């Protein structure tokens, strides 16, 4: 073990990690999947969805922002944390208007996949049925805010990867909404269909026009295997070494 490495324990399993990484990254490198929605590789961590909440040395922290420390004891897959994650996923569903059966993203949607992974078939909280605007002004990209989960992946990707700042947020609290950098809607911005921001969307909020249903429902990514399986399969392979 080099001086750049630390040892930590996730659900009792001892792992080594570079001292500069987060708990989420350390877990992933060791084949442990910590559920997440607002985190996306290559973007600065945001810590907003709270789905990746773990207990680090007893303290609740998002795994995506918590740095590893030597000797750190992390709880990830516990009854308490699974319950909190289910509640948070439920909240995300009821604060939006999500109709999976009519959504082109179904099967490729990280929110839907997260619900399935956590055994959620219907939320226990009452639907809030908010009014959220659709923006179809752009020739190639559609915004359906009914499906937005305010993860900021498009906001960060546009700033950090596309160098543009096309997206932001307006309002606060339960009235917070995705905003675009123009008074004339998405068409008034510099967004290009090939921008990273468009593909960063985990749900069906930012959709490319005219490319729907290329893969039939039932044969899509999370129709095949639960979200996180790719990460966990690394563990399976390692276990066989």
């Amino acid at each position, binding site marked *: 073990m080099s001086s750049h490495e630390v040892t930590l324990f996730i659900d009792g399993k001892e792992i080594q990690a570079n001292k500069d990484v987060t708990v989420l990254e350390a877990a992933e490198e060791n084949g442990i999947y910590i559920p997440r929605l607002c985190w996306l590789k290559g973007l600065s961590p945001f*810590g*907003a*969805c*709270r*789905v990746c*909440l773990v207990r680090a040395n007893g303290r*609740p922290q998002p795994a995506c*922002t918590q740095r590893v420390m030597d000797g750190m004891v992390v709880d990830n897959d516990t009854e308490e944390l699974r*319950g*909190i994650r289910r*509640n*948070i996923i439920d*909240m*995300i569903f*009821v*604060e939006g208007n999500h109709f999976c059966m009519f959504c082109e993203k179904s099967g490729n949607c990280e929110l839907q996949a997260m619900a399935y992974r956590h055994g959620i078939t219907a939320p226990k*909280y*009452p639907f*809030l049925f908010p009014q959220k605007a659709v923006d179809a002004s752009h020739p190639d990209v559609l915004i359906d805010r009914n499906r937005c989960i*305010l993860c900021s992946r498009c*906001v960060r990707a546009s*700033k950090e990867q596309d160098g*543009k*700042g*096309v*997206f*932001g*947020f*307006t*309002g*606060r*609290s*339960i*009235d*917070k909404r995705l*905003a*675009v*950098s*123009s*008074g004339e809607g998405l068409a008034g911005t510099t967004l290009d269909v090939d921008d990273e921001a468009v593909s960063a969307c985990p749900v069906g909020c930012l959709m490319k026009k005219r490319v729907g249903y290329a893969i039939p429902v039932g044969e899509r990514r999370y129709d095949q295997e639960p979200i996180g399986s790719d990460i966990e399969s690394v563990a399976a392979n390692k276990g066989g070494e």
Partner: protein
Amino acid sequence: MCVSNEAAVREVCERFDHDRTRLLDVVREVDERLRCVDDRSMDAIARELKVPRADVEGVVSFYSFLSTKDKGEITIRVCNDVVDRMKGGDEVAAAFEQALGVPFGGGVGRGSAGAGKGGVDGGDIEGGVSLEYTSCIGMCDQAPAALVNDVVVTRLTPSAARTIVRKLKDRSGSEDLRTLLADSFGDGNNSHDLVRSMVENSIRRAGEVVLAPYESDAGLTNAFSSSPQEVIRVIKASRLRGRGGAGFPAGVKWEHTRAAAGDQKYIICNADEGEPGTFKDRVILTERAHLMFDGMTIAGYAIGATQGIVYLRAEYAYLRHFLDDVLAARRRDGRLGSGLADGFSFDIQIRMGAGAYVCGEETALIESLEGKRGQPRFKPPFPAVKGYLGKPTCVNNVETFCCVARIFEKGSAWFSSIGSAGSSGTKVLSISGDCHRPGIYEVPFGVSLRDVLALCGATDVAAVQVGGPSGRMVPPADFDRTLCYDDLATGGALIVFNQGRDLIDIASQYLGFFIHESCGYCTPCRVGNTLLKERIDRIRDGHGHPSDLDYLKELSSTITTASRCGLGWTSPNPVTSLITGFPELLEQRIPLDPSNNGTGFDLETSLRKAGQDSGLPSYEMEV
């Protein structure tokens, strides 16, 4: 109004050196001059400051006092805090609405539509008027209250509201709103030429630390005769803890900020008291500004800062010119500026908030000062290491700085001899609600709640909200508990409720406050508070189900555990303190044999409401 005026926008941006960290100041000023920040103004600001346009809208839409739509020349913001409504705020609100002919949040009117109906004769309010509700404006001891632009009007009645509308109609263009709206000015500096406000201090009990007379700058002189390290040792010896509510030891915070590497360090005074029921900082700012500024200067000397900033809540804008004048006097007297002590230079500026409770959280406050949405930051790094503009920053409360100056006047041993074992000194309390003598009480730590209630003349008490909605609703069985960091810790708000109050409805109103004030960054706080209110309202209205209590407990626990900052950690407190302190109240309200079979659905009410909404004749249920 609100004609986007690019020249005006450019001028404002220029005055702030096109500095994007001053974005909040820029939009505040544009909003003040043009009475809104509309699409074209936002475009122009984005261009001038070279920031994404979405970031400009993000800031404008975040703060309650800013608007993307025209507000007219006059904005009346009626405080809808629990205490204001207890004191007749709803009737006052209705009187404003009727007299103006403008609904709340319903755009700009001229007041003429109200002619005849509300008892106010015709005529226009020049430039138009808009009507809004606002969260607690720090006037609970003289509620109901409202803001007319920056001017505070207190002890309102429906007829006082109509008089205000009348005066606004009769106003000649340039007439000073302060003189126009107040029949007389309040006590102390409230009558100062630069304040001219009808607000009253209502100091019922001045203690020996904060509200005792302070004329000299003895504290400052004594501090300067010691080394900065010695100053920190004295503060640590005094065992002074933060007065804003969290109670972090001030000396430790200073030590960390001093030790942190940085070519520039900052002292920030948190004057953003937004906790409903709290108004002590307003009185301290009015009457003990020098004491506070001395404390800030001492703190600057101790940690090696050259710049101090007071972040003043927008609701207290009426104190701005007065405080600026106090600072100017201090510069003239050599109490600010260069060469204060052995190479130490220090200056203080006032910066304004724009209506956001969450900015009382120190990292949200710093974000706000940097011209962003007031969203709390990740910690670590703490402000002591990486704060304002990335530099080591020490944030303390108004009252904490006052204690600092007094400690150097009278000594740390004197200070720590006051109060209780774990909590030295005094606490300034803001007391309001159902009591005979609401106002400001400075008491030594360790006093029992029962004694405080006797002081303020509260009888027939059903509950006391200690620490505002983010604190606890305390039942009579706990009135012998004491106010101190080890028992009932509080930022100082005590709201008294008598036996006639509906505590479940009060909890619901407090949840409404948190829903309004959540920044919306993290899911549990953004959504969870709305869900809590939905269920507590159901119980309040008699449609609860026994299983709702477990539902509320579990939901509260998720919000408290998973939220990102103190707002979400405490926002379920109105619910959890009802469940633990007043279980019988909830059980009484939940039908034993619910005719709704636990669905929470009341067919009769729903049909009646549907009938009203559709405009059809009312539908009578046959049972």
